[in-house]
């Protein structure tokens, strides 16, 4: 080789090196730009106030959730925010206020294939690109909640429709050789084996047009969501559709023969009130496996099959007492692959495939150009790409963290006002709640959602919160009417939080209070304090705020027989601190 040839070769080499460097920079820039673009998308959702919820402080939790809720329909946490808010608003005893929230949730859940064809993007860019729709078990439970909300309002027809939508078909990948349910890892292994077999034995073009194991390796089977079938049966029963109700009851017994006595009681129709009771916090979603690419649900509250002990009392003693079986264990539901969308499996499999493609490309490139610099740069590019994919391969661990751990369903008879219903999980005194204020329904059956509380955040407590077990009503309210105390509005130092109207004012005046005041003047006092009493007014654009007894400006009474009602009226609250001069003047200098 002469000098000119050598110079030419060096120039070619320099040129190739510069171009190679350019390529690497370009690739790096693209990845950095995509990373920056994704930055906001990688934000985790706001943590739920689980401490408040475990203690039954649903009013404070509801307001906190409302404040952090996104209004952007395109936001990935749009549904998650609403799912949380709807569940806690219901637990707080406000089914009417929960209505608009459930409507949004329902609209999204009824939309199929929102994330269809986004697997590639989520693998190459980020799993968080997907709109969060929750796992199938979270969706079914939310539909169940919507059914409960409609039933609380007495709309059994809509309760039936919502319950029916909770009973969608599931994918069953079956059991292993030992007869145990396949877990996620086993499904990943099977998917990889399937792909390798296909890769070695079939025409590539034909293989390209065929579905993979995740799309074909399962059997479609009907739902085994006992709670959903029970709600569908109840709703049909209330609508007079006994045949359809019996069909649903039959499925329930087939799935879970253990609860046959409960089904027999429901079928008999010897009840006029149904309590849907939940307790604890459902499992949390955690990433695990290589690069956290897989996800599973780990229990936060332990599972067991302890029954719910329910006692109905009046002043004279016990009228009815029974033990009601566990109907739904959310830990078990979340652990079954049928109730998971297995998107993490798809992601893990595709990520592995992508990594292999990159590795192969780099190896080929290195093999073709055994130039040292190029190998370094190509290796660097592959390293960055590999790190990028490694960083984005994590499973999506967003989940609805406010689901309870368990559900019970309890039929009782409330034949007169003044009865107290005492509910407690067997052997767990901390779960006890005494429901006061329930009245017989005007017709048919009524339904109440009761989310039990604990004195602390831990799953087991010796004692419930004091308000939960008091069994008393300390404040006059719209659901149960006046109490024995001299009648005076809470904002004026009394214990009445009823909607101001002629009858209520007349009660004050009969007791010798506000004798010179007109109804218009009384309402003006509330307005001066910024207090609303109509649920539509109170919901408004900002959502239903805290109750006036808890320092808020809402005087909307939660539904009797709920945890929210029990918390608000089952304890004595601090005296009201007025905001307006009018009320300050009326209360006097001592306040």
């Amino acid at each position: 080789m002469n000098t000119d040839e050598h110079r030419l070769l060096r120039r070619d080499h320099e040129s190739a090196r510069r171009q190679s460097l350019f390529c690497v920079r370009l690739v790096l820039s693209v990845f950095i730009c995509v990373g920056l673009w994704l930055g906001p998308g990688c934000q985790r959702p706001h943590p739920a106030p689980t401490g408040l919820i475990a203690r039954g402080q649903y009013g404070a939790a509801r307001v906190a959730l409302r404040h952090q809720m996104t209004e952007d329909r395109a936001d990935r946490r749009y549904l998650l925010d609403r799912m949380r808010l709807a569940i806690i608003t219901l637990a707080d005893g406000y089914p009417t206020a929960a209505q608009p929230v459930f409507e949004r949730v329902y609209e999204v859940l009824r939309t199929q294939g929102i994330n269809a064809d986004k697997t590639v993007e989520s693998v190459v860019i980020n799993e968080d690109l997907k709109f969060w729709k929750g796992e199938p078990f979270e969706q079914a439970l939310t539909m169940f909640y919507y059914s409960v909300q409609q039933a609380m309002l007495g709309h059994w027809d809509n309760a039936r429709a919502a319950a029916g939508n909770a009973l969608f078909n599931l994918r069953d990948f079956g059991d292993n050789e030992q007869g145990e349910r396949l877990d996620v890892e086993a499904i990943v292994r099977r998917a990889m084996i399937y792909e390798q077999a296909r890769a070695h034995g079939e025409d590539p073009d034909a293989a390209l047009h065929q579905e993979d194991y995740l799309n074909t390796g399962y059997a479609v089977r009907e739902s085994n969501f006992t709670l959903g079938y029970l709600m569908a049966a109840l709703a049909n029963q209330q609508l007079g559709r006994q045949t359809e109700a019996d069909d649903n009851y039959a499925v329930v017994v087939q799935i879970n023969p253990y609860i046959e006595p409960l089904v027999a009681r429901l079928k008999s129709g010897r009840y006029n009130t149904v309590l849907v009771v939940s307790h604890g916090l459902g499992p949390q979603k955690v990433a695990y496996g290589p690069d956290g690419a897989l996800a599973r649900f780990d229990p936060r509250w332990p599972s067991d099959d302890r029954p719910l002990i329910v006692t109905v009392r009046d002043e004279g003693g016990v009228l009815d007492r029974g033990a009601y079986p566990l109907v739904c264990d959310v830990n078990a539901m979340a652990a079954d692959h049928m109730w998971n969308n297995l998107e993490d499996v798809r992601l893990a499999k595709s990520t592995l495939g992508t990594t292999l493609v990159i590795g192969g490309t780099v190896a080929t490139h290195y093999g073709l150009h055994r130039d040292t610099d190029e190998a370094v740069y190509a290796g660097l590019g592959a390293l960055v790409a590999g790190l990028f994919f490694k960083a984005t391969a994590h499973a999506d661990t967003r989940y609805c963290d406010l689901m309870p751990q368990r559900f019970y369903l309890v039929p009782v008879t409330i034949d007169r006002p003044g009865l107290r219903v005492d509910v407690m999980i067997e052997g767990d005194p901390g779960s006890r709640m005494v429901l006061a204020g329930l009245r017989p329904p005007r017709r048919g059956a009524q339904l109440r959602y009761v989310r039990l509380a604990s004195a602390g955040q831990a799953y087991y407590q010796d004692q419930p919160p004091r308000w939960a077990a008091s069994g008393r009503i300390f404040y006059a309210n719209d659901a149960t009417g006046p109490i024995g105390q001299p009648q005076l509005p809470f904002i004026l130092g009394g214990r009445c939080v009823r909607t101001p109207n002629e009858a209520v004012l007349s009660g004050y005046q009969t007791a010798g209070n506000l004798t010179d005041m007109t109804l218009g003047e009384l309402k003006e006092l509330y307005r001066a304090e910024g207090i609303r009493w109509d649920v539509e007014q109170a919901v408004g654009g900002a959502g239903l705020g805290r109750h006036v007894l808890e320092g808020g400006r809402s005087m909307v009474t939660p539904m009797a027989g709920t945890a929210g009602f029990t918390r608000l009226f089952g304890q004595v609250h601090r005296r009201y601190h007025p905001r307006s001069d009018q009320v300050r003047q009326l209360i006097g200098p001592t306040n």
Partner: protein
Amino acid sequence: MKAACGSAATGVLIGGLALCLTACAATPQRSSRMTADDFDAMIAAMAASLAHSDPVASRAADSPRWVITIDRVQNLSSDVMTDAEQWAIMARLRGAAPIRALWDQKNIRFVIRAERVEKIRRDPDLYAFDDSFGAERRPTHQMSATFRSITRATAVDRTDLYYCEFEILDMASGEPVWSDRFEYKRSAHGHVWD
């Protein structure tokens, strides 16, 4: 080498662009729920059907007055219809042009339900309404509507066939004087959980 780099860079750019476009593309709606268009078509069809039905067509302006009370829709379909939606359907039917024309031409009136009258009477915020409100209703007929559906679902497809039955009953005899139904179908593709 230059060509290889150029191709690689072009590939990366095209790939990135494709990803961005795919990610940003509007997600198609894939729901088998009833839509506002379905309700519009149904109301128009039902109003026309009622207006041209024999019992109504044979009436004149001086016929004995029909006072029709309208029930809330009963929803036995697979889709949740909110209370507001159910009342809105009946209100829109009542307000449809062919129905409005019946007021004077056929001496037919539509009134609200007794429960609604009672609620207004008792509403402490509505001072203008006392126990005399609605006392002259005296309905002679009752109109009801029931939604039903048949659902067929596979792993990735769902089809709902909805049909709504409207009926007017003579409250004196209990006989139906008019009934008709309206059907429509909605399909959706994609996993329901996805």
